[in-house]
């Protein structure tokens, strides 16, 4: 799917690496010496109560927020001055909380904007409608349609986002993020607002992505996190309080104390049964 290989610096097996990243907003420490490694082909979950710094972490990676201390490496190279519009070129895609689709663009056009990284036609070619601009547009359209198809939403290509259900919009947003063939996908609360059935489909989808790219998942929905993540990082008040496999994290007393509460242990006790009862984070 992605034409660019997942080639990384052989000295550094991780695609993305944060080391001791610290972000302060005035007196508030949003991230306190947070380190995180994102290996290719893995799903990394970031969880924590509200205000733990999850979204700030994403904003640091995306260049919206500059850390006061620490370092961000992408494929072994330090990223210090990157801006949000550089991400697509670097191979990083991010979905937004909510939907974030362009309401005035059709679904197909939305996804074509996501594929803009692959567009070659410049302003002049567009102005004069040179045939190569048309060819470029057709290639982009086919790429976008193929992506919509692979996510099962090609039949709404000509619709406007406002006409579609929330679940379909979420899929389109995912298509828009994936169509640029990123090496890293940052998912910001993808399960919010979805039905149980849709969440199951989403889990399936995220597991399928592992073959092509690395995923970092910020999510409140515990079932999804425990289901699809290979590693989980737990933040609380900007500090990393645990890091490990879902099973390790779940049993970590610090995590349980900080945030998961009694319910999960109850749910654990009835292993094999559904964990629906513990699925929502208290206070989410």
């Amino acid at each position, binding site marked *: 799917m992605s034409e660019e290989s997942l080639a990384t610096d052989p000295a550094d097996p991780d695609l993305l690496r944060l080391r001791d990243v610290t972000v302060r907003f005035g007196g508030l420490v949003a991230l306190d010496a947070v380190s995180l490694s994102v290996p290719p082909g893995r799903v990394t979950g970031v969880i924590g109560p509200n205000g733990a710094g999850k979204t700030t972490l994403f904003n640091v990676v995306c260049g919206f927020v500059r850390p006061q201390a620490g370092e961000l490496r992408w494929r072994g190279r330090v990223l210090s001055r990157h801006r949000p519009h550089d991400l697509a070129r670097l191979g990083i895609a991010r979905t937004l909380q909510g939907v974030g689709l362009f309401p005035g663009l059709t679904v197909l056009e939305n996804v074509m904007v996501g594929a803009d990284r692959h567009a070659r036609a410049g302003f002049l070619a567009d102005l004069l409608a040179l045939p190569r601009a048309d060819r470029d547009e057709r290639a982009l359209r086919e790429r976008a349609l193929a992506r919509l198809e692979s996510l099962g939403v090609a*039949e709404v290509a000509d619709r406007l986002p406002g006409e579609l259900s929330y679940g379909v919009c979420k899929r389109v947003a995912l298509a828009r993020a994936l169509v640029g063939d990123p090496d890293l996908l940052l998912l910001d609360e993808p399960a919010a607002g979805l039905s149980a059935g849709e969440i199951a489909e989403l889990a399936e989808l995220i597991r399928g992505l592992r073959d092509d790219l690395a995923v970092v998942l910020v999510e409140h929905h515990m079932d999804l996190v425990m289901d699809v993540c290979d590693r989980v990082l737990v933040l609380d008040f900007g500090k990393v309080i645990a890091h490990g496999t879902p099973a390790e994290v779940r049993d970590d007393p610090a995590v349980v104390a900080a945030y998961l509460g009694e319910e999960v242990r109850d749910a654990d006790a009835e292993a094999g049964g559904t964990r629906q009862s513990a699925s929502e984070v208290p206070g989410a």
Partner: protein
Amino acid sequence: MIGTTRQAAAPARAAERARLALGRYRLVRHALGAAAALVALYALTSAVSPYRDLQIAQAAYLTCAVAGLTVLTGLGGQISLGHGAFMAVGAYTTALLLNHRSWPLAAVLAAAVVVTAAAGTAVGAVAARLHGPYLAGATLAFAVGLPGLANYEPLLDLLGGQNGLSVTPPVPPAALGETFPVERWQAWIACLGAVLTLFLLANLVRGRFGRTLRATRDDEIAAALHGVRVARVRIIATVVSAACAGLAGGLLAVATTLAAPGAFPLALSLQLIAAIIIGGLGSLAGAVWGALVLVFVPAWASDLAQSADLSHNIASNLPLALYGLVLIVVTLVFPRGIQGGLRAARTALARRRSPRDDAAHEEAAPHDTAARDTAVHGGDS
């Protein structure tokens, strides 16, 4: 549930395919449209009186400015109250070059476009960082301040003060005959400029640039996250829009044979805004409607007032009142502008003809028939 069931008969499908093959290239589609427009305008200008020819010229140069503004405001979401000032830049550049250089008219107009585009770059660099009322305020200051330059003491000799610069009217080529009216020649020049502007803008709007511009309008953070350089796209849109206004100003100087501050009051900038809204925000066809309304509604209203044989006081104010009334009625009846109203009517008609054909697209977004054809698979998801 969402798929479009398309069970059109085979011949219709073949015709569609032929149309697609022809319309495969934007260049072909838009060039054909431009050629058709030129032929129609040729016939129209040849059939009417010199007075009407001048009105057509006026509508044509206003079309340039309105079309440029509708791209910036309708598709880019950036308001500009300063487009009258851009027109002034174009008009004065044209007048100065025509009076001091013996360049061919096309070169003079091209220079006017370049100079105005340069002014647009400066304004655009500022405007890209501003939003809503701040942007409106900044461009308003530009519209109010710039025409004042003509009365600035050190520039009085160059720009001619309040009286402005008069321009010698363009001379029709001898091949058109001795009696060829100069007004028709002016109309031809202006119409050629308008068609060229619409052709180039249509190319832009239907391509990558138009799409990314609309994306920055809808959600600039999401656009940036997908690699769109929001500030750059906005500056380019301002430059394009200013260039169109510059051409409009140059054509105004040619059509009215004058470039004077009185031709570029704040009201002109506001009228351009009114025109894009009346015509249909973001639509190039709507820009044509808007320009026609700007020219012909006041003319019609004053004709009406004169023919009604009213007292002087009423007759001289009636046109303004009628004009305002028309604007109010149009915005009430067509909230999406004239073009939006026409599109809705066409959709309603099409739906009546084939009730199963689901075509509920009302947004200005251009959806290519090619895209639609490949995208629609029918059936439920």
